[in-house]
């Protein structure tokens, strides 16, 4: 798995990094910590090439601090991200001749730290295009000056071709509520849900989005397959059917107590029932994270 975490200079970033570290610890993911500009001020000037030699720029300082925080979440001897480990290993170099060799081990998984200055949303999307990942993680208060919290998240959600986890505030959910309106659900997205459930020790609720009267057959079938998959993985899974005309209201209600996941993708029409405005409201008002699955 490859995770891209977009970070700025806000106070929420520490929580975001903690969550990324927990997820990475469970999945042994390759991780990119991407510093993006969330707005400028006298204290936080725009990042430019002149700052290469001067490492005192707040974004650089923040990113390095967050990297340290990420690495500190792992015990040194167990961390897959430790860059160099000097060890001694007894090796039989010839028959009946053993040498205690000095061994250098590189990190088993990648931890990359980058900065992309400029428009934050475009920077995140450019990074995801150039270095494809399985999951983009952003904090809902990425835009540190408090204006239009959903603007960056919405652009990334709608234009990224991969799953996006928007981490809201600092509450941990008791249930993951995952909504689907199509049957092309990737194994990869099932795994992400699996990880969310494990991470938060949460219940799982699968919500099939129905037409006005009934749940379409292909969605019904897919829900049955998903139910069996998670039951075999020992995850308590509940099921529900919600008419598409009520989806917006349902998602808003669910987000007040749970992490809402939406299985969007090329086959999905959820964007018709959860408009950009209602997505903004969802992100603004939710006390919990929102996960867009592709």
């Amino acid at each position: 798995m490859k995770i891209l975490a977009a970070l700025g200079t806000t106070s929420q970033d520490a929580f975001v990094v903690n969550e990324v570290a927990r997820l990475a610890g469970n999945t042994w993911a390759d991780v990119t910590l991407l510093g993006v500009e969330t707005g400028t001020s006298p204290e936080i000037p725009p990042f430019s090439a002149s700052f290469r030699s001067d490492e005192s720029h707040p974004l650089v300082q923040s990113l390095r601090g967050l990297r340290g925080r990420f690495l500190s979440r792992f015990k040194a001897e167990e961390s897959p991200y430790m860059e160099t480990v000097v060890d001694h290993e007894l090796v039989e170099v010839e028959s009946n001749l053993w040498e205690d060799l000095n061994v250098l081990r590189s990190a088993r998984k990648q931890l990359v730290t980058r900065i992309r200055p400029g428009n934050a949303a475009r920077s995140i999307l450019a990074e995801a295009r150039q270095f494809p990942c399985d999951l983009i993680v952003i904090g809902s208060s990425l835009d540190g000056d408090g204006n239009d919290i959903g603007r960056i998240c919405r652009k990334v959600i709608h234009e990224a071709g991969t799953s996006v986890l928007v981490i809201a505030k600092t509450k941990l959910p008791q249930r993951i509520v995952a909504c689907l309106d199509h049957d092309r659900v990737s194994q990869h997205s099932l795994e992400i849900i699996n990880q969310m459930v494990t991470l938060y020790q949460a219940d799982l609720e699968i919500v099939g989005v129905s037409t006005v009267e009934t749940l379409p057959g292909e969605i019904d079938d897919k829900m049955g397959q998903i139910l069996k998959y998670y039951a075999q993985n020992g995850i308590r899974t509940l099921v529900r059917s919600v008419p598409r005309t009520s989806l917006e209201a349902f998602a808003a209600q669910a987000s007040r107590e749970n992490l809402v996941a939406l299985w969007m993708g090329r086959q999905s029409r959820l964007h018709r029932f959860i408009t950009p405005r209602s997505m903004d409201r969802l992100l603004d008002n939710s006390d919990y994270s929102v996960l867009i699955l592709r």
Partner: protein
Amino acid sequence: MIRTLVSVYPNIASVIAMNYACGLSQVIDMEIQPIFVKEPEPETEAPGVGWVRRTWENSLLDTERDAIDRLIEAERSHCANLARAQVLFGKRDNAILSNLMGGTYDLFVEGSLAGFEKSEFEQRVGSELYRNLPCPVIIARNLIQLQKVLVVFDEEINIGNLLHRLTNLFDGTRFRFDLLYYRFSGAGISVDPIDGAEDLFPEVEAVLSPHGWKPENRLALQGSPQGLVRRIQDYSLIVTCLPQRMGPDSSLVQLLGDTFSPILLFRQ
């Protein structure tokens, strides 16, 4: 042995119903008869009679029959007394009611996904089938193994009568259960105990003792529907009576409409 009719259809609700019934059969002596009723398309008129009609019906049933057979066979390994599916053609609720009215069944099980609007649950329990059920019904909502049961009543339900019917149905079986008297009050999610609750359980001992049943807890709680639903969400079966009243005035409909747990309903 409890003779149980289980409504099946090639959908997830039926997977849940079959799985739940078979799970019950591992703790309760049960014989399970699945029933599949194929409803004709509204615009389709059945041709002729006799052999012609049967051939036409069979052609419509073939695809679904395979799916039903697969659904049932998936459960057979952990379900000792599981009959082959009875396949009928016609109006679903009418066919099921007709079977139940034949008097050979002690329990009816059907699957139903939880919805968002309570009206869906209300419509079902207010249907002609439910209003005329000759036996109790289990609405199986999720894949939940039977662990602890909650018997729920309010001021409109005679708890002695409910327990009497429950012990008769499951005579000889022991499972862990609690009793809950509830009352709606207030808003938010807080739930508070009701003072002086001992008087709310007058006939419990007299009904339960002869069967060797004993509740682990007797709870008397008041709160909002939302709060009470949270309180009961960990029980693997909710037992109560069919609501007498429907609509927003019915506290029982509000309580049951939102619960994820399977529900066992007796007629009052």
